[in-house]
């Protein structure tokens, strides 16, 4: 298995945001994480990526305990993420956004960049070429010199996903990628997710509110409510699960 989460707990003051959370993700899976607002889905993401420290429990990625690692260390092991509210570097160009993702893969020292050594020049040139190929793959090559904040919404999402993929991850965490999108943009996004999963041989965990996306993409769905997993299974199983319907629509709709 690629990722194993064991008995994860996290509280904010008196609120237990995540309670005894257990999850196993196999390599090559596309797993959906759903639940009503405030169920603790994003908290789980923040715990996996090291932005929050769990109160108790363990997170094991690729046979390595990553529970107490810092965010940048976890990224380097191969987990990258996108954010619910798009976090691009707004005042940098599209090209600069992508190329900053290659930073940690560049091994030259600051001294060699001061002296513009041969090593520096070669690595910089290679990385710029790679960044350009990346933009081309995502059909953003016409936008390279545009500031990220001036992109249309759908392309902002695309750039954020592209930037996350430039980190060369094994596991990609997508936090509500279709949030705020029109139907056409959503359909394009679904194609994009299928495409990158094949192309980069990825394992994906996705938080999503739009049922169209989640039912269309995921092989397995995990449902959270009040910090706990209330159901787990294939899209069909989840759709007919009374607990899930109760969580989303209220008790009286579930058992009539």
């Amino acid at each position, binding site marked *: 298995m690629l990722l194993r989460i064991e008995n994860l707990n996290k509280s904010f003051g008196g609120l237990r945001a995540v309670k005894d959370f257990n999850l196993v993700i196999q390599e090559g899976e596309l797993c959906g994480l759903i639940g009503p607002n405030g169920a603790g889905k994003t908290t789980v993401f923040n715990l996996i990526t090291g932005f929050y420290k769990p109160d108790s429990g363990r997170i094991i990625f690729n046979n390595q305990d990553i529970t107490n690692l810092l965010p*940048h260390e976890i990224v380097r092991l191969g987990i990258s993420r996108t954010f619910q509210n798009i976090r691009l570097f707004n005042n940098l160009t599209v090209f600069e956004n992508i190329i*900053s993702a290659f930073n940690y893969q560049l091994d030259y020292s600051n001294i060699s960049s001061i002296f513009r050594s041969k090593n520096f020049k070669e690595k910089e040139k290679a990385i710029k070429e790679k960044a350009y190929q990346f933009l081309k793959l995502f059909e953003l090559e016409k936008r390279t010199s545009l500031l990220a904040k001036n992109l249309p919404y759908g392309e902002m999402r695309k750039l954020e996903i592209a930037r996350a993929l430039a980190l060369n991850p094994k596991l990609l965490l997508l936090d509500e990628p279709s949030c705020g999108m029109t139907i056409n943009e959503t359909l394009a996004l679904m194609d994009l997710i299928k495409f990158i999963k094949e192309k980069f041989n990825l394992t994906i965990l996705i938080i999503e509110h739009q049922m169209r996306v989640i039912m269309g993409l995921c092989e397995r769905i995990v449902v959270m409510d009040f910090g706990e997993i209330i159901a787990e299974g294939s899209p069909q199983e989840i759709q007919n699960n009374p607990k899930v319907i109760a969580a989303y629509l209220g008790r009286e709709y579930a058992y009539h």
Partner: protein
Amino acid sequence: MINLYLIKIFSYACCITISALGLNLIYGYTGLFSLGHAAFMGIGAYLSALITKSFCQYGYLIYFLAIILSTIFTFLISYLIAIPILKLKSDYLGIATLGFGIIVKVLLDNSDKIFPQMGGSRGMLAIPNFTNLPIAFFSLILVIIIMRNLIFSKFGRSLLAIREDENAAYALGINVYKQRLLSFALGCAFAGFSGSLYAHLYCFLHPSNFDFLRSIDLMLIIVLGGLGSMSGTIIAAFLWVFILEGLRIILPQAILDWRLVIYPLLLILLMLLRPQGIFGNKEILWLKEKILKKCY
């Protein structure tokens, strides 16, 4: 006579530019709000002056050694200071650096208790005059080259990423805290470097040359030139020095002190008309990054 005066002013402008470039690295590129930059200039200035004054028989040799030593010392001190205070963000960091600036000023005011030759609040006298125009100018060019080469490397890109969005920078595998420390210490080392040039230019140091108001002056320069623009900082620093001095010549004796009113007025006007500073975050000429043609 006027020629000598001009040369002095020009050398002074070079010093100020070096210091401002350091602050631009800290605030303009990394987004760390620092109000204590002049204090680091003071540390460099006093330390190097102390060294050259004590061993002045060695001439230029000790001068260059003093510059190098005080630059390294400023780097180390600012690195140590930064370890606790860089846990703070934005305005809070500003207050903490402001506090540090005041501490340094008070220490310098009372320095004669320990080192009598530092003069305390009476000022440090009779520092050998080693800095001349070629040295100041060459130092400036050197600093610009170092800055430019650092900015257009992975280091510079990680600083920009941190400035734009800290969390996204973390998510890209950037060690935010470490890069911030390095940027802060490097910027302060430039200040220490410029301070040691300055000390041997005017041959007289006074703690009030490195107080809070001097830090504000540097902050004004980089905001005026455009945050995150080396070209802007260089031009704004020279403009700032020459306008202040130029007004001294132009204005009649009776209203000479009004120059300190005129230049803030210019500032307010510029901020109203061009809030992003003279250059925004653009660069000119050779300071631009070399880019792959087909990428743009």
